[in-house]
């Protein structure tokens, strides 16, 4: 049976048109884009330049504000460490939201180790940044705030324009992780007024192993990788030309198809949401009900453990992801790697409950038939797992006993 892929928040397949655009840059145009004076280098140099133009267009930046890196993680590291180091004469305090990606929050210990102070800002039950908490924690010594544009686990889109406005008044730098939004919903860095933002093509049918960082003109940022003079001096290392070309193509396609894709995704996820709500009891949807990514449905189910649910969905040829502790890091060396999702904990879902969490993230090639199929198998899986759950048994006994 054909697989049903509802895990686009983890990664998307490379579009065939994107792949085709990349192919000439492996063998035919293999040259080093830094070797601009020879023909072999001039062609890939031009290709990288054209891709940069497309990505700049995608987010409303100018071409010389886009830097290529190897991944969203590297972009987040370059932005936060680079801004912190370049602006340490202005202050030492950095704020992260509680729901940032690991490539942001796991920088905290390192930053503390080199003399910065890192604090975390709360979000509300829908995952929206708590403005009051931000105001409380923003001191005169604060130089940088990092808040993602959208969270890929719970789908919430953050009001970063309002937050940027507030931070500009206080003269605080603002970094935003746009991995969830750039290429999926309209993003304009000038309108949003962020200082740096990351763009990750494997979230929108581009290749892995490449990403970008928007750095607003005039912003001071210290490179964290030492080497040759690539990427305007911000990021040393020979550019991954085929991946950058594919990134550019994926950005072009995203611009052209964005409305059409979003319209379809909204329709599919609406049906999925409503179908789950009507067929499964004790289900709780997570993230903001309206301000959320198109095609994103996240929830947790009482008395059902997330990893077991994920495994059963997989056995039914359905790919999803779970924020449960058990599935968090199955490949870890020991059980200390098993932690309930920090995102779900931040929105007030207790760790015991996080265990039943699932994220369905749909993509441009999913169909209504696939949604209907998922809806047809979900109640059976949930029943099966509840039937073997001592927690459900206890709950049922308490219910009947109470009558």
């Amino acid at each position, binding site marked *: 049976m054909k697989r049903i892929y509802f895990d686009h928040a983890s990664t998307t397949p490379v579009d065939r048109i994107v792949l085709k655009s990349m192919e000439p840059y492996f063998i035919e145009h293999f040259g080093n884009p830094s070797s601009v004076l020879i023909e072999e280098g001039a062609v890939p140099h031009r290709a990288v330049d054209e891709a940069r133009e497309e990505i700049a267009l995608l987010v409303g930046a100018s071409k010389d504000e886009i830097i290529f890196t190897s991944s969203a993680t590297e972009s987040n590291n370059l932005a936060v460490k680079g801004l912190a180091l370049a602006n340490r004469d202005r202050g030492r305090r950095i704020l992260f939201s509680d729901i940032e990606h690991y490539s942001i929050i796991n920088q905290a210990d390192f930053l503390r180790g080199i003399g910065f102070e890192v604090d975390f800002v709360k979000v509300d039950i829908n995952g929206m940044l708590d403005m009051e908490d931000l105001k409380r924690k923003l001191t005169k010594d604060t130089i940088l705030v990092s808040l993602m544009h959208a969270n890929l686990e719970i789908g919430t889109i953050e009001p970063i324009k309002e937050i940027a406005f507030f931070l500009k008044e206080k003269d605080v730098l603002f970094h935003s992780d746009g991995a969830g939004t750039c290429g999926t919903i309209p993003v304009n860095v000038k309108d949003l007024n962020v200082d740096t933002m990351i763009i990750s093509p494997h979230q929108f049918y581009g290749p892995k192993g490449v990403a970008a960082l928007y750095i607003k003109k005039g912003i001071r940022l210290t490179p964290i990788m030492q080497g040759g003079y690539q990427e305007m001096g911000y990021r040393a290392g020979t550019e991954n030309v085929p991946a950058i070309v594919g990134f550019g193509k994926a950005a072009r396609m995203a611009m052209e198809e964005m409305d059409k894709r979003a319209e379809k995704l909204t329709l599919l996820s609406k049906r999925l949401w409503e179908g789950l709500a009507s067929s499964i009891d004790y289900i709780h949807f997570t993230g903001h009900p309206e301000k959320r990514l198109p095609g994103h449905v996240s929830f947790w189910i009482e*008395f059902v*453990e997330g*990893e*077991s649910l994920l*495994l059963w969905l*997989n*056995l039914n040829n359905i790919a999803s992801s779970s924020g*449960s*502790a*058990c*599935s968090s*890091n*199955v*490949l*870890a*060396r*020991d*059980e200390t*790697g*098993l932690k*309930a999702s920090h995102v779900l904990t931040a929105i007030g879902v207790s*760790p*015991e409950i*996080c*265990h039943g969490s699932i994220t369905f993230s749909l993509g441009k090639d999913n169909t209504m038939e696939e949604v209907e199929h998922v809806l047809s198998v979900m109640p059976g899986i949930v029943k099966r797992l509840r*039937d*073997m*759950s*001592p*927690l*459900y*048994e206890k709950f049922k006994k308490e219910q009947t006993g109470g009558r």
Partner: protein
Amino acid sequence: MPQGPYSDIVMDHFMNPRNMGEIENADAVGEVGNPACGDVMKLYLKIEDGKIVDAKFKTFGCGAAIASSSITTEMIKGKTIDEALKISNEAVAQALGGLPPAKQHCSVLAEEALKIAIEDYNKKKGSG
């Protein structure tokens, strides 16, 4: 079919759990929980003349927790209490064809549920 870090045997017990359910008027019940993983395992035993004649379980937990519970019921059925107490978590994990390092605690949970059930039995017997 092995799935990710889980062996064929783990997946078989996960998909087709043996002895899942409750025993009414069980002679022994052991319930344990693990805060690290959030698993809850409940083991029911029917004991006659010092021998485990029936065993059933209910588990809220991951694939490894369900498989560990299931195989434990198979391993203890027909054994005397003393024999059953000798079953270690390593033996449970080994019978499953191994567990990923991060999931070893699931086999510990099964061993603990069994010990608590037998303690419960001894207490009942002592007071009865």
